[in-house]
C-alpha cells in the first residue's frame, strides 16, 4: 500500500491549517478521488436503520400525540380546536392538583435520595450485618408495584396491622390511605421503600470509586461520622448523587402509576393524582384521547426539562471532575 495514500485514523493534535482544511472539504464535496460513491454513502446506509427506527417508532408517535392535542374529542372529533385542550387542562382543578403533586415530588426528592445514600454509607462503612442489609434493601426493587401496593394496602388498612400496633400503645388509628393530607406522602413513602434499592446499588458503585485513603486520613485526623460524610463522602460522590437525583425524579414522575392505581386510585378526593394517572383516566375512562394527548404533551415537556437538567448537571459534574 503506497504510504502517500494512507490517512491518519485520528485527527492530529494541534491547529489545522484553515486553507488546507478548506481544500480537503472541497475535494470531498466534489467526490474525492480514490473514495468511490458507495464508500461515501456507507455511513449513511449504516445509520439508516437506527434513524428509521427513531423516526418511525419514536418521533412520529411523539409528533402524532402533540398533533392530537390540538384536535377535539367527542362531537368535535377530528376538528382543529387550537389550544382548547390546554385551556381545559389549566382550568381543571384535578390536573392542577396533579401538577401540584409533581411539585411535592420535587420537594420530597432530597429525602428519596438521602435514604439510599445514608444506608449505602452505612453498608460501605461495614456496619455489623452489612451484607444482609445490602440484600434486604435491594429486595423490594424486584417486586412489582402492584404487589407492593397490595401489601401496603393490607398493612395500612384502617383496621390493618399498623393501626392495630399503634392502638396497642395508645395511638389512635389513622386513615393512612383515606386522608388526603396523609395519603400522598404515604404513597411516595411506599414508592421510595420499593425503589431505593436500585439507587442504593448506584451509590455502592460510586463508593467503589471513592479513594479509601481519604477516609483513613479523616479517621486518623479524628473526624466523627457526620464530618466524614460531609467532608469526604459527599464531595467524593457528587457525580453519583447528581445522577441518583435525576433518575429518582424521573422514576417518581413515570413509575408511580401502578402504586397509585392499586393503593389510592388517585384518591382520596383526587389528592394523589399525578399527570400520568390523569392521562390514563382521561384516555381510558373518560374517552377523551385528545385531552389526554394534551396532558401527555405537558408531561413530556416536564420530562424534557428534567432530562435537560440531567444533561446540564452531568456535564457540569464532568467539567468539575
Amino acid at each position: 500500500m503506497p504510504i502517500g495514500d494512507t490517512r491518519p485514523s485520528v485527527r492530529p493534535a494541534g491547529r489545522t491549517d484553515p486553507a488546507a482544511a478548506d481544500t480537503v472539504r472541497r475535494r470531498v464535496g466534489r467526490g474525492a478521488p480514490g473514495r468511490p460513491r458507495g464508500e461515501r454513502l456507507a455511513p449513511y446506509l449504516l445509520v439508516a436503520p437506527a434513524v428509521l427506527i427513531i423516526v418511525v417508532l419514536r418521533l412520529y408517535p411523539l409528533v402524532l400525540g402533540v398533533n392530537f392535542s390540538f384536535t377535539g374529542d367527542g362531537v368535535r372529533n377530528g376538528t382543529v380546536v387550537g389550544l382548547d385542550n390546554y385551556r381545559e387542562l389549566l382550568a381543571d382543578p384535578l390536573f392542577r392538583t396533579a401538577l401540584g403533586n409533581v411539585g411535592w415530588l420535587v420537594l420530597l426528592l432530597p429525602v428519596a435520595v438521602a435514604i439510599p445514600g445514608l444506608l449505602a454509607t452505612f453498608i460501605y462503612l461495614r456496619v455489623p450485618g452489612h451484607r444482609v442489609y445490602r440484600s434486604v434493601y435491594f429486595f423490594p426493587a424486584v417486586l412489582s408495584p402492584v404487589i407492593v401496593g397490595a401489601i401496603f394496602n393490607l398493612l395500612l388498612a384502617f383496621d390493618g396491622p399498623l393501626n392495630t400496633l399503634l392502638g396497642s400503645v395508645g395511638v389512635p388509628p389513622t386513615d393512612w390511605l383515606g386522608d388526603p393530607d396523609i395519603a400522598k406522602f404515604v404513597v411516595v413513602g411506599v414508592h421510595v421503600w420499593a425503589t431505593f434499592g436500585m439507587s442504593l446499588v448506584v451509590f455502592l458503585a460510586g463508593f467503589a470509586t471513592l479513594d479509601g485513603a481519604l477516609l483513613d486520613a479523616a479517621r486518623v485526623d479524628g473526624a466523627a461520622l457526620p464530618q466524614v460524610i460531609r467532608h469526604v463522602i459527599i464531595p467524593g460522590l457528587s457525580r453519583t448523587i447528581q445522577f441518583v437525583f435525576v433518575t429518582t425524579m424521573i422514576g417518581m414522575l413515570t413509575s408511580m402509576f401502578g402504586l397509585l392505581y392499586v393503593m389510592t386510585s388517585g384518591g382520596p378526593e383526587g389528592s394523589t393524582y399525578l399527570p400520568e394517572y390523569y392521562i390514563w383516566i382521561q384516555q381510558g375512562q373518560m374517552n377523551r384521547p385528545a385531552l389526554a394527548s394534551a396532558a401527555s404533551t405537558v408531561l413530556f415537556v416536564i420530562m424534557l426539562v428534567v432530562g435537560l437538567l440531567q444533561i446540564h448537571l452531568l456535564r457540569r459534574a464532568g467539567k468539575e471532575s
Partner: protein
Amino acid sequence: MKKRALWSAALVVGLVTMAGCGSAGGPGNSSGGSADKLVVWDWKSGEASAAQYLDKAKADFARKHPGVSVEFVAQPFDQYYTLLGAAIQAGKGPDVMLFNGGGQIRDRVDALVPLDEQVAEDKQRLAGWEAFTADGKTYAAPVTLQGHPIYYNKALYAKAGLDPATPATTWDRFLADCAAIARAGAKCFALGNKEGAGIQFWLSALGSGILTAQEYDDWIAGKRDWNSPNVKRVFALWQEAGKAGLNNDGANSTAMFNDSFAIFQSGKAAHIIGLMSDVGHWKDFSEFITPDDLGVMSAPVVTAGTTPSLAYDGGIGYAVAKWTKDPEVAADLVRSLTSTEALKAFYADAGAIAADTTIDVSQGGPAVAGIVSALRGGKPALHVALSSKTIDLMGRLSQQLLSGSITVDEVVKQLAASDQAG
C-alpha cells in the same frame, strides 16, 4: 450546534404544520374482522361461571350461521375501556363488544351500529334497554340487569332485637334500627368508597325515597334541578350518615370490590347497597350469609309522600362495531348472546339477574325473589343518567363530603356545572 438548532427548528415547523390535522379519535371506519369470523371482546368469557352461558349462545349462533366462527377475547375489566378506547381509535377493534349500560356506551356510540331493527323481536322479552340507548337509538342488547338493592343481615337484626321480617320503611325508623344495631356491636352500612363509587349506589338506592316521582322522572329525562332541596338532601344524608358513624371506619380507603362486601358478609355491618348483576349480589353474599338470613329491603322513605322503588337498568350488554364486515351477522350473534336459553345458564351459574324476566328464579331464595318481584315497579337508576365525567367528579366530591372538607351547596354547584357541560 447549528445543526442541532436546524433539527429543532424542523421539528417545531413539523409540529406546527401538522397541528390539528387528523384526530385522536382515529378513522373509525376500517375493518376489524373478516366476513367468516367474528371477534368478541368482553370481561366475562374467561370466568367459569360464564362458560355454560357462552356455550349456549355459541350453539344458538352456530345453528343460524354455521360458516361463521366466533372468537371470544376476555380482557381484564380494569383495563377494558382503556383497551377498547385504543381499539376504537385505531378503528380495528372487535366486531362485537360488551358494555356496561349508561355513560360507558353512550360515550362511544360513534363507533357502534344502531340495532333497533335487528332486536325488534326481543324488545318485549328483555328489560333494561334504556341503559343502552342514546338519542332514541338502541346500541346494545341487555344481558343482565344491574340495580342497587339494599341487602340486610337478618341474623344481625335478630341479635339487635329487631324484627328481621319488618325492616324500616322510614328514615327515622331506620336510624333507630341502626342505633340498635350499633349497640349490638355492628355498623349500619358496609361502605367502600375508595373508588368514589359508593355515592352512585347511595344516590340510586335511596333516591326514590328522597326525590318526588316528578323529580325522579325529570332527572332521568335530563331535566335535573341540582338546587332542589330533595337533591341536596341526597348528599346531605350521605354526609350525615358518615358523621353519625353509620358506615364502617375508613370508608374512603375501603375498596368496594371486595373489601366492603367482605365487611357485610362477615357480619360487621347490617346493610349494604349491593348489586344484582353477577358480583356483589345475592349469590355472592349467600356463600357466607345463609339465604334465609339475607334480606332485601326497600329504600326508607325520607321525603314524605314518596314511593320507593328498585333502581335498575340494563347491566351489561353486547354491541356491534361500526367497522364489522357484516353487521347483520354480528347482530345475530348479539341476539344469540341474549337468547333465553343462554341467559338461563348465566342466571343459574353466575346468579346474575338476567335481562330476560321470564326466567324462573323461584329456586334462588328469598333475596332473589324479592329483587325480581321489585323489578315490575322499578325505575332507571339515577346515577346511570349522568355522564362519566360527572360521575367521576361526584365520586371525588363524595369523599370530600365524608371527610367534611366541602359543603353540600358547593357539591351540588360543582355537579350542576359538570352536568350542564355534559
